[in-house]
C-alpha cells in the first residue's frame, strides 16, 4: 500500500483509513459474513476506502491502483449475497455511492444515472412523475443501479419487462487502467454489443460508473389473479399456459411458501396483467387456467414482498438462512424442484426448504429456493447445502445461477456453467486487467 495514500491525496480523491469506514466495507451480504459479525469478527478488511464523486475520479483511482498493482474491490450498497465484494486481500474498497446523478428524459423514456444511485430512490422519483423502472428486485431499496448491472439482476416484473440486460440502453465504465469506456447512445445497433461484457461482470473488467436505462409509464389498469393447485406440476402447467398472454408478473409458490404467505397448504400461482388490455387478458386467463381461483393472494404478496425481517429475527439466534436461484427449461422444472428440495433437506440441520418460481421465459423459468438451518457447525452446513443443491440442479437439467451472480460462492461450478467458454473469460480478464487488480478471486 506504500504510496497509495499520497497518490490519492495528490489526485484529490476523498479517501479514508478510519476504522469505522474500514469496518463498513468489510463484507457483502453473504450469510456466513453475518454469522461472523455476530461474533464481532470481520470477514476481511480493506486498507483504504475511496469515495470518488465523478467518472474522472474513478479513473484516477484505478490508474493509481493499476500502477501500484493494488487490489480494488467495488462497493455499491453491499447487498449482494455471493461473497463478491469482500476485500480478502485488503487493498482499496472503491465506493460507487458518490456517483449519484440522475437525468430523466421523459420524451425518450430513458434516464441516465450514476452507478451509485440507490434503486428505491430512483423508483420513487419516477413514480412521482407517473413512471416506473419496472425493475423491482427485492433489494430495490438497498441496492444500486451499478450493482444491478454488475450482478445481471432480475426484478419481480421481469416476466413482463425483462431483466436488467433488457432494460439498459447504454453504460459507461472505467477499465482497470483508468480508461473510460463510452459508446454512442442509441436504441439499438448491429455489431458486437460490447457493453454486455459488463453485465454480470461482478467488477471483473472495471467499474460501471453510469447507466442509461429505459423506464415505463405507471400502468393505469391492472388485473390480479390468484390460483391454487394440488401439485407443483399442475401449477407450472398453468404458468406455461399463461405466458403467451404476457403477464407483467407471475410467481408459482410451493406448498410451504403458500402456507407461509397465504396460510394455505396448496401450491399457488399469482399473476398481474397491467396496462391497456389487462382486463381482457384477465378474462382470457380465467378461461384457460385449470387451478382453483382464490381471492387476494396478490395483494398479500405485494404487501410482504420486501419484508426480509425474518433474516434478522432468526439470524440473531444463530440460524443459517440463504437463497439459491437457478434456472432450467420447462421440461426439467418439476423434477429439478423436487431434487433440489430433497437435496437441501437431506443435510442435517435443515429446518426449512421451500421454493417459488419467480421469473418466466418462453423456454423455461427460474426457481428460487429458500432454506434455513440450525446446525451444529454453520460453515460446514452451509457449504454442504450449497454443494448438494447445486449438484441436484446440475444433474436435473438446471444451472448454477439465475440472478444473484457467481462471486466466490459459486466459482467451484464455473466450468459446469460456462463450459468451454470459460477459458475465453479468463483470457478476457487477462487482456482487460493485466495486473489483476479488479475483484480478485471473483468469477475466476
Amino acid at each position: 500500500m506504500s504510496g497509495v495514500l499520497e497518490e490519492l491525496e495528490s489526485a484529490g480523491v476523498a479517501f479514508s483509513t478510519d476504522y469505522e469506514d474500514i469496518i463498513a466495507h468489510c463484507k457483502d451480504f453473504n450469510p456466513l459474513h453475518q454469522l461472523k459479525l455476530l461474533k464481532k469478527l470481520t470477514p476481511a478488511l480493506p486498507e483504504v476506502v475511496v469515495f470518488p464523486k465523478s467518472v474522472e475520479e474513478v479513473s484516477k483511482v484505478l490508474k493509481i491502483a493499476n500502477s501500484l498493482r493494488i487490489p480494488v474491490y467495488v462497493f455499491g450498497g453491499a447487498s449482494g449475497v455471493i461473497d463478491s465484494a469482500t476485500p480478502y486481500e485488503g487493498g482499496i474498497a472503491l465506493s460507487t455511492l458518490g456517483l449519484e446523478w440522475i437525468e430523466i428524459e421523459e420524451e425518450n423514456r430513458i434516464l441516465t444515472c450514476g452507478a451509485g444511485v440507490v434503486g428505491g430512490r430512483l423508483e420513487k422519483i419516477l413514480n412521482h412523475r407517473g413512471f416506473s423502472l419496472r425493475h423491482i428486485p427485492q433489494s430495490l431499496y438497498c441496492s444500486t443501479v451499478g450493482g444491478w448491472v454488475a450482478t445481471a439482476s432480475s426484478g419481480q416484473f421481469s416476466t413482463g419487462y425483462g431483466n436488467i440486460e433488457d432494460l439498459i440502453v447504454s453504460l459507461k465504465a472505467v477499465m482497470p487502467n483508468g480508461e473510460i469506456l463510452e459508446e454512442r447512445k442509441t436504441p439499438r445497433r448491429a455489431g458486437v454489443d460490447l457493453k454486455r461484457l459488463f453485465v454480470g461482470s461482478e467488477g471483473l473488467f472495471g467499474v460501471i460508473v453510469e447507466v442509461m436505462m429505459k423506464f415505463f409509464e405507471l400502468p393505469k389498469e391492472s388485473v390480479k389473479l390468484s390460483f391454487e393447485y394440488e401439485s407443483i406440476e399442475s401449477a407450472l402447467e398453468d404458468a406455461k399456459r399463461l405466458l403467451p398472454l404476457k403477464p407483467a408478473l407471475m410467481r408459482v409458490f410451493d406448498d410451504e411458501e403458500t402456507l407461509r404467505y397465504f396460510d394455505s397448504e396448496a401450491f399457488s400461482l399469482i399473476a398481474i396483467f397491467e396496462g391497456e388490455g389487462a382486463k381482457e387478458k384477465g378474462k382470457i386467463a380465467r378461461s384457460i387456467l385449470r387451478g382453483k381461483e382464490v381471492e387476494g393472494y396478490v395483494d398479500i404478496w405485494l404487501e410482504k414482498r420486501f419484508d426480509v425481517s425474518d433474516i434478522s429475527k432468526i439470524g440473531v439466534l444463530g440460524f443459517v438462512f440463504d437463497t439459491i436461484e437457478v434456472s432450467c427449461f420447462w421440461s426439467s422444472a418439476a423434477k429439478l424442484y423436487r431434487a433440489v428440495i430433497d437435496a437441501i433437506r437431506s443435510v442435517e440441520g435443515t429446518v426449512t426448504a421451500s421454493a417459488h418460481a419467480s421469473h418466466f421465459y418462453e423456454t423455461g423459468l427460474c426457481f428460487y429456493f429458500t432454506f434455513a438451518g440450525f446446525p451444529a457447525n454453520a460453515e460446514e452446513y452451509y457449504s454442504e447445502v450449497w454443494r448438494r443443491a447445486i449438484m441436484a440442479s446440475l444433474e436435473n437439467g438446471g444451472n448454477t445461477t439465475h440472478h444473484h451472480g457467481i462471486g466466490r460462492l459459486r466459482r467451484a461450478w464455473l466450468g459446469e456453467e460456462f463450459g468451454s467458454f470459460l477459458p475465453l473469460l479468463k483470457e478476457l480478464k487477462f487482456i482487460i486487467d493485466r495486473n489483476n487488480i479488479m475483484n480478485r478471486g471473483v468469477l475466476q
Partner: protein
Amino acid sequence: MNPKLIMRILSQTDLKTKLRLAKVIPKLGSGDEIVKCMLCPNMCLYSCPVFDAERRLTVSPSVKSRIAYFGGEEAIYHCLPCDACRENCKMEISVNDCLRKLRSGKYADKIDRWMRKLSKRIEERDGKILYFPGCRTFEFGLFEKTVECLEKLGVDFALTSEIVCCGMPYYEIGDKRYMEHFSKLKKVASDYEKVISSCPHCVSIVREIGINSDHLLTLLKPSRIGGTISYHDPCLMARKLGLIEEPRNFLKACGFEIVEPAFSKRQTACCGYGGIYRLLYPENAEKIAEKRRKELDFEVVTACPACKAALRGKDFVELLLEVI
C-alpha cells in the same frame, strides 16, 4: 409464526436439530434491536437523509448499527431523529433511538456553546395554556412573530422565562443534563392545562415526559390568502405527531393549491436541521437541506422552525401575519 407452519417444519426436521431448536424457539422474536438492524441488508437505505448527504455506507442505518455493535464511537452520532429508517422498517426499528442509548456526551461542548447563544429575555404572561416556543423558534426568529400572531387571533396563552429549551440536544447526545431540563419542564408545565409549541420535536418530547401537548397549528385559524405552494412535512410532525392532513386542510382553507413533492407525508424527506446533526456536522446538514430544497418546486410552507430555516420557507404564522 403460523402454527401449521411450525408443525410442518418440525415434522421435516431431524431429531438432533429438533433438540437444538427446543432451546432457541422460546427466544424467537427476542434480540437486541441493534443486532437485528445490523443483520438487515439496509432495506431503509434509500430513505436515510444522512446516508444520502454523506454518500458513505459507514453512516447508513444498518452499518451504523454494525459499527455500534463493534464499539465505534463516531458514526453513532451521524444520525437524525427523523425516523425515516423506522418508517421503512418491517421491524419498526428506529436507528436513532438505538444509537442514542450508546452515545456518551461526546461533543457536549458544541451543544453548550450553542445553548449559551440562546439566552433570551422573555416577557412572562399568564394564561391557561403555556406557549413553549422551543429553542429553534428563538434561533430562527419565529418567537416574536408567533406571539404577535397569537395575540391577533385572540388566543389566551402564557409565557414563561423559566425554561427555554426542552433538553432535546442533551438528550440526543447522551448527556445526562437532559434530565434536568425534562424535570424542570415537567414542573413548569404542570401549572397549565396544556403546552403548545411551534416545534414538533418539543411537542414530541413534552408528550414523552407525560404532559398534554399539541403543535401550535391546532390554535391557528385560517385566513384567505391563495397561491401555489409546496408543503414540507416536518419528519416528527408527520411520523410522531401524525399531523399530515391537518396542515394541508389548513392551507387549503387559506386558498392555497398544494403541490406535493416526490417525498411527502409519512415518506417525507428530512431537511437536515433536526436533532443535533446540524450542530455537529453543519456542512452535511446543509447538503441535506440543499437536496430537499431541490425537491420542492414552489414557495415552501412548513410547520417547524428548523425546517423553515433549512428550506428557506415560511411558517404558518408568517403566512397569517401577512393578512391578519
